């Protein structure tokens, strides 16, 4: 079984403990953070294990790249301090059990675009931007064979990820694609961050969707008509696993001529969509989730956003309707980019 490669010496020597002191959901000064981190390292119970909303942000805040969030989740499982009620964990774990037969593995000569478990979103990756790639996992009956499994970080279940990930990797690798672009941040984060952190071998090269879109749009600059919208971006939790790719958001916005509005809850300060918080076990989680969403939407409105750009389907599912109810149009990044070259979104 795979184990987290966590360097406790780095952590113990850390002077800032940004992982916990910068957490948007737990108020903690440096001495407290240091003490709690020591408990986590020693495998003892810590309030962090109870209060973590699993937003992934500490992965980005850690200046040492030492994977504090993966440590928290590992300890949650070891100490059986789970963020969600047990029926929700069981349901989530069972959800990804494939039951509709094996996928057909067609060889892919060039680059592939992996839809993961979002085969139903294929209409959002059509048109000239995606002409150069072959879509992978387009059959929703078979999509769980391509599941990156990272969702189980929200469930306090790294063991499930570690048990199943190799099989998903093997399925993707079997197509033989030279590069695999991942539609969802979560998949990219799995292969670019989680797998190396746990020593899991990934035999294909992963590319972030935004990086790919930037490259494609760059080659189509003459076709781009600036959209002139004011946009907000709902940054997903899994984007915290690849902060080096986050700058592509602004690069893309600049390229297609939209204004990324100035907000309080943006970039490293982005707020969780609330998807996982809604069902958490802590007292008042549902109300907290609603307040969080309202704070987020109010911030978008105050900044004058006309559109809210999503990349994560879970964020879109959770926040898309409330955003629309507030008069801000929800849209996937892929569709926004298609609009810029004169194509219609579905």
């Amino acid at each position: 079984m795979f184990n987290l490669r966590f360097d406790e010496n780095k952590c113990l020597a850390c002077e800032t403990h940004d992982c916990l002191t910068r957490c948007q959901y737990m108020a903690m000064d440096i001495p407290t953070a240091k003490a709690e981190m020591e408990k986590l390292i020693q495998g003892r119970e810590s309030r962090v294990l109870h209060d973590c909303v699993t937003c992934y942000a500490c992965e980005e805040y850690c200046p040492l790249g030492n994977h504090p969030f993966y440590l928290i989740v590992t300890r949650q499982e070891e100490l059986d301090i789970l963020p969600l009620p047990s029926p929700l964990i069981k349901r989530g774990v069972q959800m990804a059990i494939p039951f509709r037969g094996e996928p057909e593995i067609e060889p892919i000569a060039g680059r592939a675009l992996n839809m993961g478990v979002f085969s139903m979103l294929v209409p959002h990756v059509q048109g000239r931007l995606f002409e150069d790639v072959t879509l992978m996992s387009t059959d929703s009956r078979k999509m769980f064979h391509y599941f990156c499994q990272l969702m189980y970080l929200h469930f306090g279940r790294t063991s499930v990820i570690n048990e199943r990930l190799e099989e998903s990797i093997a399925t993707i690798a079997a197509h033989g694609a030279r590069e695999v672009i991942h539609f969802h941040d979560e998949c990219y984060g799995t292969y670019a961050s989680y797998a190396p952190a746990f020593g899991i071998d990934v035999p294909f090269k992963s590319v972030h969707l935004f990086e790919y879109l930037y490259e494609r749009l760059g080659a189509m600059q003459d076709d781009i008509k600036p959209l002139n919208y004011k946009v907000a971006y709902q940054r997903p939790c899994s984007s915290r696993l690849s902060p080096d790719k986050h700058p592509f958001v602004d690069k893309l916005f600049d390229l297609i001529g939209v204004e990324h509005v100035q907000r309080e809850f943006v970039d490293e300060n982005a707020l969780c969509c609330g998807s996982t918080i809604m069902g958490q076990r802590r007292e008042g989680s549902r109300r907290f989730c609603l307040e969080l969403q309202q704070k987020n939407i109010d911030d978008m409105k105050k900044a004058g956003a006309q559109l809210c750009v999503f990349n994560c389907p879970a964020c879109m599912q959770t926040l898309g309707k409330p955003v629309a109810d507030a008069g801000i149009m929800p849209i996937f990044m892929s569709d926004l980019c298609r609009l810029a070259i004169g194509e219609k979104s579905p």
Partner: protein
Amino acid sequence: MDKIYSALTQIVGEDYVSNRPEELFTYSKDLGTSPPQFPEYVAAPRTAEEVSRIVRMANQEKVAVVPLGGGMTLAGLALPLRGGIVLDLKRMDRIIELNEKARYVVIEAGASHGKLTAHLHKHAPHLMHSEPGAPPAATIGGNLAIHGQGDLAHPYGFNSDMLNGLEVVLPTGEICRFGSCAIGCAWYTLHPLPDLGLFLGWNGSTGIITKVSLRLFPCKKFREMDIFVVEDETLIPDVLFALTHVGMAEDLVAWSSAIPPFANELHHISINITGDSKEEMEFKRRQIFDIKLSKYIRDGVGAIGAVAQPSERPQISKSADWKKGGGFEYVGSIMPVAAYPECYRRGAEISTRHDIPYTVLGRVIGAAHGMMFSWSYAFNRADDRSVQHARDALHETDDLVMELGGTIWKPAVFGQQLLMSRMDPNTLQMMKKVKTMLDPNGIMNPGNWEVA
């Protein structure tokens, strides 16, 4: 020419009667496990008067008459067990009166629930009726003939509790009305005249329902479905009692199924929430999740599985897809809510014995006064062994219902006999007297509710 065929042609017109084998074949089957039963004639009347004339003729000829609505009971209740004439009532589908102020609609019994829903959406979107869990093609009369239930069962009970009046063609051909319409008034109430409820739940064996006045209920602007999940089935009754006590839901359905895998050995409660404003919706959610169910969440044994999903009816027909061949049939029962855990456990055992993925569902009726609990069994239509397994599972489940103190809902003939074998002898004799009095020649849907 065949005398009966000729008579039918004179009554309904040549286009609406048939004795051709290919059409009789269509009417010889329903979607469940029942073997085919061929009628000799099929006729599609347009009016109650035509129905009356057909029934009078059938009495003279001593030929069976089997009324047919949407044909979706799955239990073979509209199959012509002794041949005769199948009366396809779907042409009698007019919506006669929509009274918004008194909140009722008068409608011919062959109209489909889908048609009525569409009519209300267009002409009275602030009102709704109770559409059953069946496909929209299920008819109003058919659903009443089997004591159906569906939307709004939690606040208002069975569909037959939502009646304001009935028109029925008796087995001897008389057209009778019941309720305020019987004294020449509008169709606004079934009460307080003497109770003549001899037609609901009889599967058309005491008369043919031709016209109905249905109560309409407020239809709120927002309709969403939330899900609460537990693993321990013994918690379900208490959760349902808590939810019915707080009274914030429009409908409550608990369900569990082996497929898709996420639902296996878990129990989901679909909670339909409606409101005319976001504030009303949130108020209701607060009462439900933050107050009534919070202890289950805090203890880690219950969870909010989803919120604000599009409101949809339970679709147990999807279970037909869990085996190749696309067949499914279910046993429905009316049970005390407290029986949910045992119903689930024993049902899953039966499914396992017959190699069928289990699918169970309990719809709350009234303030947890009861539930319609169903066990669905998928089968492969092209595989006789698979069909036999489903049939055996259905019979075992009928026995289980009786063992657990329940009542079989819309029982097939096997289940009817089971119920009558346990029935109080005086009640049984009363049933026999009613049937003999109304249908002296025994022509109405023979084989159904037939007291020996």
